[in-house]
């Protein structure tokens, strides 16, 4: 038996930060990775969020020498794919004037491969004094009188200490500690992705600083595209039981888009690797700890409820877990009750703030990009009608406006319930009920809706001739 204060299972972003913070606090720390090195089992989009730079000072030390794949995602394209599987428009966005700090004003994400990033991060932990064991699978939890006391690895070596489960979406620690056998089917997604290689100069010329893209679609769940120095990822995800056909059917639909095919031709891009990974995606983390056990990052279900950014939340929950561990160890009390402190601590962070509106955010994502047939099939044409319809020379502009309004009216029976069920509850959660009532009372709105619809209908009736 080897004795440690803290044992971390997994050397992803969560595990490495936990190991680093723990060692820095003077705790005797070991962390395990089943891969030959950190990062070789992981797949991500992979865009790093700017909050990592704001909240972890060493992030400014990340350079292209450490991670040759680095490329800032300074701007994002939003493609809108219609019911016929064609790109019917796109919108480019950049960080806006309301963004308050650097580097968030300069880029949306910093992109790099996990095979480079994870080992770089793990070095901060080993430099701080934590012991890293690679090529080592942790197979079980040690128990004394029914309570977890440490871990056991595949060779039968035993280690005692407080256990941090940083072992990702399919977490042995969650399973063996009795916290969770598996996720509910709508708490976790499967995300297959292709990596393409292409010459850096092509990406510079063709994409410029638009190194991110989302393909919003009426025919497949929203796909993301992330550009690195010499390649890009294209992938998509959805909840486990929301796939009518094999996930590859939908990913290959993206690849088969004429627009996408043209893009890979001009980028001279070639498929290089295929990856698939599960990604927890839920409105509210729960069952985050047990006696002598704390789950962080994906193991605890912490990716952002709207867009599933998960690397920053893994790092933040790692820090909260170690702050908790320090107090627990000095109080000589690692009971579940004492470790409730962990929930209080992560809830006080930026991640906790996100989950205050977690259920509403998860619900709107579920209703929009994860529901291509049900929602995107009217949302995409409606949006494109509004954006694309005005700048059109087919009729005098006043006639065009009436034509567009009549067309949009057809989408209202879908759009209004959507606004009521998804947008209003989200706004209420964000603004608070009192402020929301000032803005508008949902009940009043619902009552007024039929009249409004009628008014819109009537005002365009006399112009119906224009349609013919």
């Amino acid at each position, binding site marked *: 038996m080897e004795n440690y204060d803290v044992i971390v299972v997994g050397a992803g972003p969560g595990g490495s930060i936990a190991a680093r913070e723990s060692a820095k606090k003077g705790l005797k720390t070991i962390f395990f*990775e*089943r*891969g*030959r090195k950190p*990062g*070789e*089992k*992981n*797949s*991500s989009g*992979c865009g790093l969020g700017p909050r990592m730079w704001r909240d972890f000072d060493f992030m400014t030390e990340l350079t292209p020498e450490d991670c040759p*794949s680095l490329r800032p995602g300074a701007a994002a394209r939003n493609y809108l794919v219609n019911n016929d599987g064609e790109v019917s428009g796109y919108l480019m966005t950049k960080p806006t004037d309301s963004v308050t700090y650097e580097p968030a004003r300069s880029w949306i994400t910093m992109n790099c*491969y*996990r*095979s480079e990033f994870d080992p770089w991060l793990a070095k901060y932990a080993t430099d701080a004094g934590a012991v890293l064991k*690679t*090529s*080592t*699978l942790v*197979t079980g939890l040690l128990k004394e009188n029914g309570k977890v006391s440490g871990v056991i*690895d*595949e060779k039968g070596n035993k280690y005692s200490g407080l256990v941090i489960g940083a072992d990702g*979406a*399919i977490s*042995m620690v969650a399973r063996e500690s009795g916290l969770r*056998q*598996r*996720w509910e*089917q709508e708490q*976790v997604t*499967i995300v*297959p992705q*292709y*990596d393409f290689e292409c010459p850096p100069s092509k990406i510079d010329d063709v994409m410029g600083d638009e190194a991110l893209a989302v393909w919003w679609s009426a025919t497949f769940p929203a796909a993301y595209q992330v550009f*690195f120095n010499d*390649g890009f990822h294209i992938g998509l995800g959805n909840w*486990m*039981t929301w*796939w009518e*056909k*094999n*996930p*590859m059917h939908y990913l*290959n639909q993206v*690849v*088969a888009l004429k627009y996408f*095919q043209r893009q*890979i031709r001009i980028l001279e891009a070639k*498929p*290089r*690797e*295929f*990856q*698939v*990974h*599960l990604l927890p995606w839920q409105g509210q983390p729960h069952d985050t700890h047990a006696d002598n056990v704390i789950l962080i990052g994906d193991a605890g279900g912490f990716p952002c409820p709207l867009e599933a950014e998960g690397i920053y939340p893994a790092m933040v929950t790692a820090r909260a877990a170690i702050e908790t561990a320090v107090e627990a160890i000095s109080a000589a009390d690692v009971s579940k009750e004492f470790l409730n402190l962990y929930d209080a601590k992560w809830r006080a962070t930026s991640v906790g703030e996100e989950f205050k509106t977690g259920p509403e955010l998860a619900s709107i994502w579920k209703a929009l990009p994860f529901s291509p047939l049900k929602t995107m099939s009217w949302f995409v044409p409606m949006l494109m009608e509004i954006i694309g319809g005005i700048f059109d020379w087919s009729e005098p502009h006043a006639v065009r406006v009436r034509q567009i309004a009549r067309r949009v009216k057809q989408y209202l029976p879908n759009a209004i319930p959507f606004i009521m069920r998804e947008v209003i509850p989200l706004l209420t959660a964000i603004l608070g009920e009192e402020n929301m009532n000032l803005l508008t009372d949902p009940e009043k709105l619902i009552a007024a809706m039929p009249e409004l619809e009628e008014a819109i209908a009537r005002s365009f009736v006399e112009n119906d001739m224009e349609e013919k």
Partner: protein
Amino acid sequence: MSLKIDHKKLIMRIPGTGNFITLDNEKCTLCGRCLIICVMNLWKKSDDRVHLVDDYASHCLECGACYQVCESGAIDFRYPAGGTGIVYAKG
């Protein structure tokens, strides 16, 4: 000409995993979820019996999706031995 990708050729693995997925046909309800979800198509159904292909260990990407969707508990999944199995160089 449109590019079609054979994703099964785009993977790199280190052999020596041993067995790490098991199926208990007694518990299987034939719900078919594992067949839909596995991106490597390693689950098959014949004569009203589900099975995992013989050489699954040389194709499996260790995603755990089959384990996650099987609510009857027929599928057990553990990661393969440390230092073996799938390697993502560009993950």
